[in-house]
């Protein structure tokens, strides 16, 4: 070992040499200054920015959520309105339809009544005219028949029956040649 001359105080571990104090102070001061002036401000700035960003993000998310909620409520309201409107329209249409049907029915009834009445009238008129014609003809027919019966012998039953039959067949051929008007 190289002989080292050692100052007594330097060898006592509890008594620092001046150089020891000086270098310690220099080192501590450097670290302190860098931490104080540069590192901590940067650290705090980053933390603050991050907090602000997160805060902003949360606020933005809340805003978007609120907007979405509002849009959903609006949409649901519109949907409900639409449903109500549709139900109203359906009810209206049903009512209108029922009304139309009732109207048509009433109209059809009145038409049918009218047709029936007019037919009845016609039938009555034709019957009337037939009656009139019949009345006017029955007289002459009866006279005609009587004259023919009287012209023939009235004693024989067979003969009178023949006369009646002939009369009727004449009548029939007459009526087929001259059909009744309106029948």
């Amino acid at each position, binding site marked *: *070992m*190289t002989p*080292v001359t*050692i100052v007594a105080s*330097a*060898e*006592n*571990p*509890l*008594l*620092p*040499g*001046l*150089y*020891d*104090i*000086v*270098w*310690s*102070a*220099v*080192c*501590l001061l*450097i*670290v*302190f200054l*860098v*931490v*104080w002036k*540069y*590192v*901590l401000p*940067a*650290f705090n*700035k*980053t933390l603050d*920015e*991050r907090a602000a*960003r997160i805060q902003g993000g949360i606020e933005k998310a809340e805003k978007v959520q609120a907007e979405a909620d509002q849009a959903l409520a609006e949409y649901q309201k519109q949907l409900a309105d639409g449903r109500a409107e549709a139900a109203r329209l359906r009810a209206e249409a049903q009512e209108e339809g029922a009304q139309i049907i009732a109207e048509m029915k009433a109209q059809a009834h009145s038409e049918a009544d009218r047709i029936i009445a007019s037919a009845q009238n016609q039938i009555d008129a034709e019957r009337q005219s037939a009656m009139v014609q019949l009345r006017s003809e029955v007289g002459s027919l009866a006279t005609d028949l009587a004259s023919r019966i009287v012209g023939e012998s009235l004693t024989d039953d067979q003969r009178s029956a023949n006369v009646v039959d002939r009369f009727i067949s004449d009548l029939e051929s007459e009526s087929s040649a001259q059909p009744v008007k309106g029948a």
Partner: protein
Amino acid sequence: MGTLNAANTMINAAEGGYHAPSMSEFFPASFLFEGTPFEMNRVMLIRLLATIAVVIILAVWAKRMKLVPSRFQSTLELAMEFVTVGIAEDTMGKERAKKFMPLIVALFFGILFWNVTKLIPFLNMPGTGVIGLPLVATLAVYVTYHWAGIAQKGFGRYLKDALVLPGVPPAMHILLIPIEFITKFVTQPFTLAIRLFANMMVGHLLLVLCFSATSFFLFDASNGFQFFSILTFAGGMFVFLLEMLVVVLQAYIFALLACVYINSAVSEEH
């Protein structure tokens, strides 16, 4: 101490023999500015290197800081939050801690890096293993807490709060005031410095002891004794792992006690 040095000298004198760890390791020969206050030796150089390392790491971290952190940034942020929140704010409260934060952070990271050089190969020497640095760091805390207390309360009331325990019979003050004085003005700072210094010094000596003994048993001892190198090496590994814990723990304790002392100096209640 004199006898210890004498014993070391005697052992060292036995050439090629067992090199016991000695106090002279902490006082290596200077190689620059010898005889001036800026005398530079190996330990001072290690301190400077550790200082430069911590400054560069923290400065690069601060410069590259982004809102979305990288892995490097997150890791250091975690460490920084451990100090700012876990040590300072939990002890002093958020508002009060803000004022003293630069000192606490500088002390924690500084002491951590000055300690950790003892575990780094080729440095193998804690910057805090020589009393100067623990003393200066303690002085910074000491001045800070007395100054903060006096600035907060005024000199008279600060002394009264510091020395006079409330709710004690008046006669007891004759006994208690000197005890409180010694506690606040002598014991607290002294233990703060010595705890750090002694832990680092003794840890280093233990490591040197174990590994130099391993080397001695393996290469210099006669056959049959080489087995002991396994034991001493295992012991050295154990101490090494322990020291990994201690270098962090001592930085933590130092910063935490600094907070506690500052807080008790500026607190309104005793």
